[in-house]
């Protein structure tokens, strides 16, 4: 950061289970905090105005567009990103289903869809097609027409 940038905020946050202590410029989005300060580039930039969902992460379990949240706002909170979804034991069932159902083409929207879909299935293990479509309406995909994404989420639901 430049020396004349506004003051930085001391932030302590848990990201994918790991505690981070950061000095975050007051103007910096959570998206840039993740990507630029920590190096977690799995969370994608699509529009920077909260309309595409490519930057979806959870903060204290709640789905947010990380471009609309300041890095300073996650002080004391828990953040989950796409990088925290798989475990050493293997992929999350949603990730496996996205692969098997060919639910991604270019893949830029995929991390956001997976984080958003996990948010749904964590609370509603067996959503209807309509519920899935409603829940994912904040995530844009331009490649697939959503058909195979919806099918993958259905496959991963119990």
């Amino acid at each position: 950061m430049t020396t004349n940038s506004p003051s930085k905020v001391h932030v302590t946050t848990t990201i994918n289970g790991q505690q981070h202590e950061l000095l975050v410029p007051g103007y910096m989005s959570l998206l840039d905090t993740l990507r630029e300060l920590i190096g977690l580039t799995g969370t994608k930039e699509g529009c920077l105005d909260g309309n595409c969902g490519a930057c979806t992460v959870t903060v204290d379990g709640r789905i947010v567009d990380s471009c609309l949240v300041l890095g300073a706002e996650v002080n004391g909170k828990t953040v989950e990103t796409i990088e925290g979804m798989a475990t050493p034991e293997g992929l999350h069932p949603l990730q496996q289903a996205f692969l098997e159902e060919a639910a991604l083409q270019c893949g830029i929207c995929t991390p956001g869809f997976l984080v958003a879909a996990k948010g749904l299935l964590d609370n509603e293990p067996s959503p209807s097609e309509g519920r899935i479509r409603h829940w994912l309406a904040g995530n844009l995909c331009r490649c697939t027409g959503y058909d195979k994404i919806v099918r993958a989420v259905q496959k991963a639901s119990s």
Partner: protein
Amino acid sequence: MVATFEPKTNYKVVGTRPIRHDGYDKVTGRAIYGGDMKLPGLIWGVCVRSPHAHANIKSIDTSAAEAMEGVFAVITGADMPKAESKLVDLGEGNINFKWASNKLMADTKVLYKGHPVAAIAAVDRYTAEEAARLVVVEYDVLPSVTNVVDALKDDAPILLDDLVGDDLGEDVHNTNMAAHVRHEFGDVEDAMSSAAHTIEREYNMQMVHQGYIEPHNATATWDEEDRIKVWTSTQGAFPARTQIAGILQVNVSQVKVTPLEIGGGFGGKIPVYFEPLAALLSKKSGRPVKMVMERTAIFETTGPTPGARMIIKLGADADGKLTAATADIWFEAGANPGAFIGPAAMCVYAPYEIANTRIDGWDVLVNKPKVAPYRAPGSPQVAFAMESAIDELCEKAGWDSMKFRVDNASKEGTRRGDGVLFSKIGMEEVLEAAQQSAHWTSPIGDAPEGKKRGRGIANGYWFNIGLKSSANLSVNADGTVQLTEGSTDIGGSRVAMAMHVAEVLGLTAHDVRPTVGDTESVGYTDVTGGSRTTYATGYACWIAANNLVEVLKDRVAVLWDINKDDVDFNDGVFSSKAEAEKTIGFKELAGKLDDLGGPANSTGSVDLESAGDGFGMHIADIEIDIETGKTDVIRYTAIQDVGTAIHPSYVEGQLQGGSVQGIGWALNEEYFMTDTGTMANSSFLDYRMPTSLDLPLIETVLVEVPNPLHPYGVRGVGETPICPPIPAIANAIQDALGKRLYNTPMNAGSILEALK
């Protein structure tokens, strides 16, 4: 001599659905896209953009920005090399370096809102944006034109003073008309005047955007030996290199392009935008420079598809046979020439056999962003006009529009509107499959109260292209094979390439590890576009695999001390023609290569003139709310001749994705321009592409009429599916309401207006 192939069906790998190799990195966030690029000492670049659509630049003062702490470099039009006026074929559309350079950075005049007038590199993005606000530009604002009718008026403001228009071969000066082309066959006037039924209608369409989710980006270094390295999201590393070198006036060998993962393009990431600017900023700052475009700029300054004005006239005899057609097509090019009127002419009549035809096309400059290819560039526009007119002609004459399409279907030997004769095509097979589909044979069902339902059908066509591709193979000691190929992977093509190789070598798809090469690790390869990738690069992979078999036969001959000609290869097993029991599998042989001459490698490359035409028909069921005018698509089926589906899941995905882009174009999407040439809806929220909530599942029917021009029968599939949706929905609206819409988007306001 063009090689042709007999159709086969007994494949082991082709037609299966293995998990894509690159998928694991993409579902875990590990995949590195252009915007994820990091280098030591990296700084950020941003553009200063014109607030006006048309203006002379009186002065630019960058001194305050340059003086700001954290700023490393500032460039303006004065820093752009003077690129020569040279037309280069990029596979899907041409570029002229002079215009391409001017599009990236204004010289003395801005031609569209958002036109860059300066670029700044600073320690980070926020500082660069801060500095951009300190650049002072004085403009002399000019009147602007934003549609083809106004642009061609005698008193229209002229965008490019030095443009020489080509009007059927005649030079035209002081004009916004870059080109006027004509194709004419038979005696159109006579056929039209003797037709039993005719129809003539005008159709108008607004520009729409590809809408890829990943922003344009580029990271570049310009080093001490004048070598330029670029990491970017591109639909073609080699065509990007061509453009960068042409705009920067250096040799192609001075430029290395490394394609990183690409987050959608649909044609819009064939042109370069930031790559040359990042390189110039790197030259000036001595640092690696990265640029990522903001969404408003993506809408305002990158690749929309042309807005269009089209007049179609059709004539048919009393028996329902099309006898004559004329099409007058005006396309908006944006701020410099190149509006895809050529492809439009190739596509407009393609699904039909018509003896007497004329096409006139005009390429017209307007003060809007220069158009870029968008999935079958030019074809969805003319499909909307032609397929709407076909249905209206049938309504007028009392004919069944499905039967009419069957009776007039193009086939082998039919002459396309631009004169080309079709080889083996699958239009008739597609129409047969459409009539047998679950969708066509099911009733649409009753609409709930306050709503009306309608069903529409339409054909679509894209010619597909061949061009140049390259691939390299090398054998690993464990019996797997490394594949390096030149096509950037925009939607799962790597797995299809590996499957081409695996089928030849008798391996599994996962025994072949595909990598997309940079411009210094694989031979020249054209764009991932034109629906050419699986066809042409797959073909190159197939050649490389067959060449590898020849290399390995040599090794087997050494192993068994026999003549190479006596070695056979089938299903992954080498055998001796003389002694049938003498065999060795591919994997076992791979483990012995160190003692049989060492590394076994091969290459394959193609330069394919023709590709095999792609035809489709879509069926759309819609439900319209009479009170609000909102249209919901309640059932949708895409039927298409795909040749042979290498990986059916990704072929279905192309049909589904193309259909939904077409649905968005039909119902919602448009560049909504103000009188002063500003796009009023330049965000995803206001532009409003389809979301998951707007759609049903998209049914697909893969018709497989093997393409004799490809060893496995592959036809390009990606572009055809965006062509039928717009007219299918227009025809469905007519079916539901008895009202026909002639302009896009056919949004709620248009529906309510029609119902008045």
